[in-house]
């Protein structure tokens, strides 16, 4: 932020100097990425059969990952926007990190959906032949809006800081930062405009963030499957998202504090305050989980006979009615991850 004093050498250090440890980390992570890319090509070549998915468990770890990462993405934007609006001054040193987590993690979530598709080569059919009756299309809309909004929300407060960097580096980075800093001079007029833009984005981003996770839950809740067809899924998922988001920030904070020696910036107060927020969300999450499990257990809605040879159709004695507990697997899987 532009209000920060300029003598914060510790903050510039990671950008101006790169150590051995950095390259080692990059090498290890690249190895994992290359390995994962190979696995994905393997899956594309042979078909989704190489995974453990099957009939009645059509969605597995990929979609669970999608829900998880979209949830973690709520870390940033939502929390930093709420704290910004409530003028909680202690937030300053964590907002940037939270916003970066949001944008990056959204890409992970979207990538997981593409990995899960049987025919990713036909991805554009969703746009060419899009049917708005499908909650998946609602997802496409709200997630792309969220991605755009949170990228802008990340970029706006970044402008004065890029300007600071612009004055410290040379070569191609100078050119890049000059371009990205959009001619920031720190004049009164510029500061006023920037504050206004950030204020607007902070308000706009909150309903978008809430809608994203509500729509993610609708993908499940709009079906008539037992345990999925549930009215509490919208708020349940939003609470779960904020819950996992805060946890992600705390984890990120702990690592960055240690690695970059930012003890002067990430103080115990940050961990304390976020810890209280996390506790509140944990209790809310527990409340929803309790509500879900108690009602289903009390209504004898538990898993019935899942296999009668091929199909999970159960025959009930007395009446000539059939009922299926088809996707309890997936329901259980989902709630355990969230």
């Amino acid at each position, binding site marked *: 932020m532009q209000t920060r004093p300029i003598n914060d050498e510790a903050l510039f250090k990671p950008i101006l100097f790169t150590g051995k440890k950095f390259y080692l980390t990059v090498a290890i992570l690249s190895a994992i990425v290359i390995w994962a890319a190979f696995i994905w090509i393997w899956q594309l070549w042979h*078909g989704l059969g190489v995974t453990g998915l099957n009939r009645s468990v059509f969605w597995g770890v990929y979609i669970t990952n999608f829900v998880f990462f979209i949830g973690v993405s709520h870390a940033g934007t939502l929390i930093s926007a709420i704290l910004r609006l409530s003028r909680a001054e202690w937030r300053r040193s964590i907002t940037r990190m939270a916003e970066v987590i949001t944008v990056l993690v959204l890409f992970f979530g979207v990538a997981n959906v593409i990995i899960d598709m049987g025919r990713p080569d036909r991805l554009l059919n969703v746009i060419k032949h899009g049917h708005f009756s499908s909650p998946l299309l609602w997802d496409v809309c709200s997630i792309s809006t969220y991605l755009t909004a949170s990228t802008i929300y990340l970029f706006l407060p970044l402008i004065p800081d890029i300007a600071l960097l612009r004055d410290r580096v040379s070569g191609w980075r100078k050119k890049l930062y000059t371009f990205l800093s959009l001619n920031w001079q720190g004049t009164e007029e510029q500061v006023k405009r920037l504050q206004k833009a950030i204020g607007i984005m902070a308000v706009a981003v909150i309903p978008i963030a809430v809608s994203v996770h509500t729509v993610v839950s609708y993908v499940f809740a709009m079906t008539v499957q037992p345990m999925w067809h549930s009215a509490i899924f919208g708020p349940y998922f939003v609470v779960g998202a904020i819950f996992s988001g805060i946890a992600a920030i705390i984890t990120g904070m702990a690592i960055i504090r240690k690695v970059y020696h930012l003890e002067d910036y990430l103080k115990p107060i940050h961990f304390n305050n976020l810890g209280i927020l996390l506790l509140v969300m944990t209790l809310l999450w527990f409340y929803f989980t309790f509500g879900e499990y108690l009602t289903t257990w009390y209504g004898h809605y538990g898993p019935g006979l899942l296999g009668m040879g091929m199909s999970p*159709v159960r025959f009930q004695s007395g009446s000539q009615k*059939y009922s299926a507990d088809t996707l309890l697997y997936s329901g259980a899987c989902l709630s355990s991850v969230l």
Partner: protein
Amino acid sequence: MPRWGMVIDLDRCTGCQACVIACKQENNVPFVSPAEAEKRRTIAWINVIQFREENSTSRMKFLPILCQHCDRPPCTPVCPTGATYKNKEGLVAQVYPRCIGCRYCANACPYTIKFFNWYAPHWPEQMQPMLNPDVSVRPKGVVEKCTFCHHRLMKAKEKAETEKRELSPEDYTPACAQTCPTGAIIFGDLDDPYSEVARLSKDARAFTLMEDLGTKPKVIYLRAGA
């Protein structure tokens, strides 16, 4: 416009599985290895389930289950590309080249009769010349299911057109109904008050699967006697 439907008389079903074989032959349903079948990845557009009533020592009962061609299908509205949709004649259709393989429809179907191609389809060498040229072979990564032998309807329509006459219900029967040795599977136009399916669908023994979901299936079962 006819409203094609099916009545399955559970009293007549002997569980012989002839319908299952006929369907696989007719619709080029790929073979699945025993190991894959163990992983619950069998593709069978029609499948005979065995069951015994709970807390009962009565004999085995059989339930042939296939796409219910619901009048209010839960699977079609959730498809993001319209690859599965209900056509004018009420058949729930699959457009394989448009399917992106998201498996949302398969998740939405309460009857679990939508199948995903986990691998590229495979037949033993001797079987390959026997593939039905009227039915497209599905690539890996798309969802498929019973179409009420839609290709037979297309053929029947073409035939009726060249003979310059109206399509009559006898022209079109799916392979399973044609094959059933006991005549347990009856097929026809539910909107034709004089058809056998229309009459049987109003029988006292008639019921549909998971009626409480409001999917309004066009596959109607007749309860087996004691």
